[in-house]
């Protein structure tokens, strides 16, 4: 469905904010009702365009967090104080507002439940969003594909989708979630408390002989480090797909 949709022109369309879900002090999910949404694959993104009353426009790209099967389109946005679009989406936008968007975009950083390789997902901060689409897609399709998520956040309060991830991991269908907190952690914290390194990837990830499909998404230094560590550990570079955020997503 998304493939054929991509063949035509991606026209701008309006989505209505059906719900705003605070995720962390700086991150919120916008649940959008997009009547003519052509469908998407887990991992794709959308372009959002804002227009001021004098015609000034600004565009940014945001990963889609909802599964292809979800009735609404969800984007999850981190508010960057120096940003232009994100402080509007997280701060100004209210339920019932309309947002102009077009998509889905990107045909490479995608996963479908038909892929039976074990899955290793590595997220940093809001890099969890396209991986959450994959996890939700996996859940919707009843897949029990062995899947491990290693998710790095600054602190416990910065973990996006925390409750939902906990619930899905407790579901007993082959999803394991490991967290690491890089700046602050609660006193009784039992997860990792350092940046992702080779030891952590060896403990959480799959042996390379299992030929997992690997998706890494987060800030550039984290993605660079994780991807090159996995290559050094012997993973086939062709099985590692990355998506990187600069500091200037805005």
């Amino acid at each position, binding site marked *: 469905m998304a493939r054929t949709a*991509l*063949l*035509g*022109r*991606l026209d701008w369309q*309006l989505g209505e904010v059906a719900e705003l879900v605070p995720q962390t002090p700086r991150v919120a999910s916008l649940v959008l009702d997009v009547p003519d949404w052509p469908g998407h694959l887990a991992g794709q993104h959308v*372009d959002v*365009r*804002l*227009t*001021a*009353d004098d*015609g*000034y*426009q*600004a*565009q*940014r*790209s945001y990963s889609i967090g909802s599964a292809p099967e979800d009735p609404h389109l969800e984007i999850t946005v981190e508010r960057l104080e120096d940003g*232009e679009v994100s402080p*509007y989406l997280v701060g*100004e936008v209210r339920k019932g*507002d*309309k*947002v*102009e968007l077009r998509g889905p*975009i*990107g*045909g*490479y*950083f995608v996963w479908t439940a038909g892929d039976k390789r074990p899955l290793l997902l590595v997220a940093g901060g809001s890099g969890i969003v396209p991986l959450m689409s994959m996890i939700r897609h996996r859940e919707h399709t009843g897949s029990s594909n062995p899947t491990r998520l290693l998710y790095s956040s600054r602190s416990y309060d910065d973990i996006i989708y925390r409750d939902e991830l906990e619930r899905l991991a407790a579901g007993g269908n082959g999803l394991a979630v490991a967290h690491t907190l890089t700046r602050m952690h609660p006193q009784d914290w039992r997860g990792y408390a350092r940046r992702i390194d080779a030891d952590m990837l060896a403990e959480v990830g799959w042996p390379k002989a299992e030929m997992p499909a690997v998706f890494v998404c987060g800030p*550039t230094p984290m993605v*660079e480090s994780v*991807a*090159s560590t*996995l*290559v050094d550990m012997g993973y086939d*570079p*062709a099985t*590692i*797909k*990355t998506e*990187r955020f*600069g*500091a*200037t997503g*805005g």
Partner: protein
Amino acid sequence: MSFISRGFRGKRRDVATSSRVPPGQHVVDDFPVLSAGPTPRIPVSEWKFVVEGEIDQPRSWTWDEFRKLPAEQVTKDIHCVTKWTKLDTPWKGVSVDTILEGVETAAEYVMAFSYGGYTTNLPLEDLTGGKAWVAYEFDGQPLHPEHGGPARLLVPHLYFWKSAKWVQGLRLVNEDQPGFWESNGYNMYGDPWREQRYWGD
């Protein structure tokens, strides 16, 4: 203008340079990194650059040979399809005109290909006439692997995914075939001034 975003004013940081910023882009000061997989590490001792395809005598250079070709210093604005524009970026490299000097070919297109498997397609005429370089220095320093080093293609008048990182060679071809991103939803040509981001734009 059909739709107005209620309450949106924007930052308008780009006003002074707005004539240099294509539609939908915004100016950044840093140099974001975007690539689809791990960064390939290519020792210059193993690096080679080739021109092949519709050409009588394929050409190739080792790193040392390539560095002896006449180089140019150019300062260009670059535009990434992910919406950032970086102004006045300083590069040093070899003009594709120099690389193709004296080549006779009926080919009208080029598939640039890279270490790590990346490809991107361009019309040959977009690589010639002082419009494209194979760059190995950025801001006076050897080009960092994250940004495509040892050498990358530099085609600043098109979206920056056309400026293939870790470039290994140019294949001269008769037909325009989609490269990596062009097979994954992105435009065959990629003119930022016509906002040709995706298929159908």
